């Protein structure tokens, strides 16, 4: 094997090792506990969707305008104040 190949293979292994190390050392448990804490406080499990005001704000929420989903749905109990 030529030197360049060995060098490239070593570099690839190093990068892979770093990714594996990151994956194994990630503190998944405390993250999950913190997320569960938010849900325990608020009771809302949906991720924080960055949607326009007239779009469904919660994941899995049904769109009530099946023919035109981009239109503001009527079934929202939310408050808009005029400018």
């Amino acid at each position, binding site marked *: *094997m*030529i030197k*360049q*190949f*060995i060098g*490239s293979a070593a570099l*690839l292994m190093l*990068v*892979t090792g770093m*990714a594996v190390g*990151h*994956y194994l050392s*990630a503190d*998944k448990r405390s*993250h*999950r506990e*913190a*997320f*569960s*804490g*938010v*849900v*325990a*406080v*608020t*009771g*809302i*499990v*949906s*991720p*924080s*969707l*960055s*949607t*326009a*005001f007239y*779009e469904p*704000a919660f*994941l*899995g929420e049904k769109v*009530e305008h099946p023919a035109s989903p981009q239109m503001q749905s*009527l*079934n*929202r*109990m*939310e*408050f*808009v*104040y*005029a*400018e």
Partner: protein
Amino acid sequence: MLSRSPFLYFLTLLLFKQKSKHLGIMSISVVMIALVSAVLFISSSLQKTLQDTLDEQADFTVTRIEAGRPVSTPLAWVDKIIEIEGVSEVAPRIHGRYFYAPGEESFLVVGIDFFDEQGSKALQSLLKGIDLKQFFAEESMIVGEGVKDFLQKHYYKDTFSFKTPRGEFKKVKIDEVLPGSLNLLANDMIIMPIGLAREIFGLKEDEVTDITFNVPNDAEWDNVIGKLHLVDYEIRVVEKREVEKAYENLYNYKGGIFLILYIIALLTLMLILYQRYAMVYSHERKEIGILRAVGWSIRDILKLKFYETLILVISSFVIGTVAAYGYVFVLGAPVLIEIFLGGANLENQVQLIPEVSFGTLGSLFLLYAVPFFAAVLIPSWRVAVIPPKEAMR
């Protein structure tokens, strides 16, 4: 010794001498694999996180429907629901979106009962330093990082004035900011006392947004739903299992679209590769002819092509997946995360929990490697079996 093998020396020398030939195919492969792996990583991380947090969610959510639209739910339903056998932990909720017209953005306002023992304990464990006495000294709120950044941009440093439906302004102090690691769930969230949220949304004392409750015995779920519909005609019940299914389908669907695009791109790449070897005047064809002419057997040529392809396949797959891993779990998947969370409201810089589905990754590798090998080995074999003179012509 492996490193002194003339075959390996020739193979690696060939790879580096013809690197410009391989770099093109490798870079296309890396981009394709990185893109599809990134989507799969985001999808599996979100799915796993949501699946875990879903355990904390109540089994049922009840709202009142009027003319097909959800409206405020009467608080009196709480007593009626408690009376149903098998029901526990009935809790009224007040939440909704507050639209901030000048910035055309909206926040999710959640009212919580700070006097509820469980809720206040959970809040204290979430925000270790929170001083509830100080929090109640004046009208205060806890905001997500996205909300804090947005308010600061609009010069609301310590307080924010909500406008109630009565046209009055309600000045609320920004008491605490939720940690950035919670942005996935709480980026646009504002947590405040339930009474204050009721005032901001203009709800009466006997009204709430919805009511949640649990039914610990799964076998009783359908029976309880039947009884709920007898409470009132205008009732709408959302079950936890419906939400679970919706989450699963949504992310599978989004990941699926990328997988289809990946398969199309992969087929195109394989076609290009196949053409490269099969073309009558191609460089590869001449190369195989020369090797045959100097005495290489068909088996040797196929072995050379196999190992050459194996190195290319493995290295491009590893580079692609590691790049995707870094992009998703170290950088937080900028741009691509917007496909999953949207980008029309507050900017959300999430920290995804590293979660890799090795089964999916293995399938992706097979889906990539098998056609790649086929596109190289089949035409190489077809060239290798013809006389060298003809192949070099």
